[in-house]
């Protein structure tokens, strides 16, 4: 296991993120809402500014130098993403607007051809609404059913119950790599193996995993892997769908328009090759280039050391949380990413969120778009502090000092 970052190394990394160095409500900002979106290093901001200052042009069509440059950078960004998750071919990387659109694309396109009455889609009870609702929508059209895989009270998927749900009518299993609300790291390799044994396909929602450690889609052997650029220190508006090539080739287009066609006539239209078949309209060119800059930036760092630092932050925060009277940690799985969800007896998460904000501390409160999960835990929501490698132990001390003050105010 790699050594965590030293204080000096964290300070050096923090210097790369200009937004972190500001006062909020009279206090230095403590940004602990990284599961909602991550902040952007200067290198990403510079890449966006450079693109719009020098290269802005539409891709793939222009008969001029700017379009050539924009296209080269845009396609090189696709290669960066393919390398980053170890995809075999760049054509397996489809640009989308984000995780949500990636899942909607697979549900609508793959689902339309592969789901029939009586078929089943399994989703875990940990899923974000964006990995539940698209499946419900296609199930409604095809007559398939969406069935939850149960999780226990620590927030861990019950593997025996999962295996018991598997049969030949299960066509798709969609689970997140890491739970956004609780931080649980799911045993995706084992889930994929079991699902494949009954012939089901597997989509892994990697939105909450991709920022934390290297992902290898070939080693994992998933059929689809999806994530958002903005949770990987890149811009909002760009996302990724990775898919097995054979599946992507068989799937019908998702949206019609420019870019995704080969020829169009009123007697019929033929569609473009992968990946363009799924990329109707002018794509988020700057977003793709910005995402590649984020990946380049991450590749300059020792990612194992970043992950070890995040683990140390979570362990430190969890230990402090357990010492707060009336505080209950929601999500106590053995294997967790750097997410601390909690409630404090006698208070509402929204009170805590507002009063933390007054002290310059940014967290998320509410149901985290995981209402079925919150129902299981018998709470309308939680306070969620989510950490990234640029967070410090001192910031966690600030969080708990602020919580002490809030408890005095409210209780």
């Amino acid at each position, binding site marked *: 296991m790699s050594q965590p970052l030293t204080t000096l190394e964290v300070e050096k990394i923090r210097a790369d993120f200009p937004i972190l160095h500001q006062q909020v*409500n009279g206090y230095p900002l403590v940004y602990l809402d990284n599961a909602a979106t991550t902040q952007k290093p200067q290198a990403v901001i510079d890449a966006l500014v450079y693109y719009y200052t020098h290269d802005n042009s539409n891709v793939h069509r222009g008969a001029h130098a700017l379009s050539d440059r924009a296209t080269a950078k845009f396609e090189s960004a696709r290669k960066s993403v393919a390398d980053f998750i170890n995809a075999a071919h760049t054509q397996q990387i489809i640009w989308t607007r984000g995780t949500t659109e990636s899942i909607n694309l697979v549900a609508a396109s793959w689902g339309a051809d592969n789901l029939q009455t009586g078929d089943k889609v399994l989703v875990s009870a940990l899923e974000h609404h964006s990995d539940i609702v698209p499946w419900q929508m296609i199930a409604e059209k095809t007559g398939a059913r969406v069935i939850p895989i149960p999780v226990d009270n620590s927030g861990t998927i019950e593997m025996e119950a999962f295996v018991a749900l598997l049969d030949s009518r299960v066509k798709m299993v969609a689970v997140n790599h890491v739970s956004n609300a609780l931080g649980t790291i799911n045993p995706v390799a084992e889930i994929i193996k079991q699902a494949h044994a009954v012939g089901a396909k597997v989509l892994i929602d990697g939105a909450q995993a991709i920022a934390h450690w290297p992902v290898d889609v070939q080693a994992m052997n998933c059929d689809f892997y999806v994530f958002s650029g903005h949770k990987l220190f890149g811009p909002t508006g760009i996302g990724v769908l990775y898919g097995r090539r054979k599946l992507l080739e068989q799937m019908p287009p998702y949206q019609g328009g420019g870019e995704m066609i080969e020829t169009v006539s009123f007697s019929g239209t033929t569609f473009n090759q992968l990946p363009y078949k799924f990329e109707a309209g002018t794509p988020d060119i700057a977003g793709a280039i910005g995402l590649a800059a984020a990946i380049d930036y991450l590749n300059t760092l020792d990612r194992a050391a970043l992950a070890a630092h995040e683990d140390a932050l979570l362990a430190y925060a969890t230990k402090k949380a357990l010492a707060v009277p009336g505080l209950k940690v929601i999500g106590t799985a053995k294997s967790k990413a750097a997410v601390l969800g909690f409630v404090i007896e006698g208070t509402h998460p*929204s*009170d805590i969120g507002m009063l933390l904000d*007054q002290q310059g501390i940014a967290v998320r409160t509410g149901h985290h778009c995981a209402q079925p999960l919150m129902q299981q835990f018998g709470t309308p*929501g939680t306070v969620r502090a989510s950490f990234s490698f640029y967070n410090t132990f001192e910031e966690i001390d600030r969080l708990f000092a602020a919580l002490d003050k809030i408890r005095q105010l409210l209780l």
Partner: protein
Amino acid sequence: MTTFGLDITAADIVDNLSFFDSWDDRYKYIIDLGKELSPMALADHVDDNLIRGCQSKVWLSSEIKDGRLYFTVDSDAFIVKGLLAIVMAAYNGKTKAEIREFDIQGFFASIDLMRHLSTTRGSGLQSMVARIQSLAA
């Protein structure tokens, strides 16, 4: 119990909040205002009274007496309940015409803290205001 709109008016709230120098005193005042609201019976915590789109639960029931609208409000969050009390200082016990004429956004804008919280979707404040205004239409 305090009767909002009578014992404490919108102008009183603006005055009182201008006293405090620190955020914790301001919030303590708001939380205390919430505690001064007449309690809502649990039986009134029904879906018909629930205001949607808030992070915390917010309930509103109303009745008309002698041409004036009287509200009972509640929330499961302390601060939101205090914010509801501030809205009550403006609206409770007023005629429909008075409610229609009252410049609620100007009132929010005159209080630093409300300016921020009233635009936070999760606070439910604007949904509450919209519901009251439709009752006064």
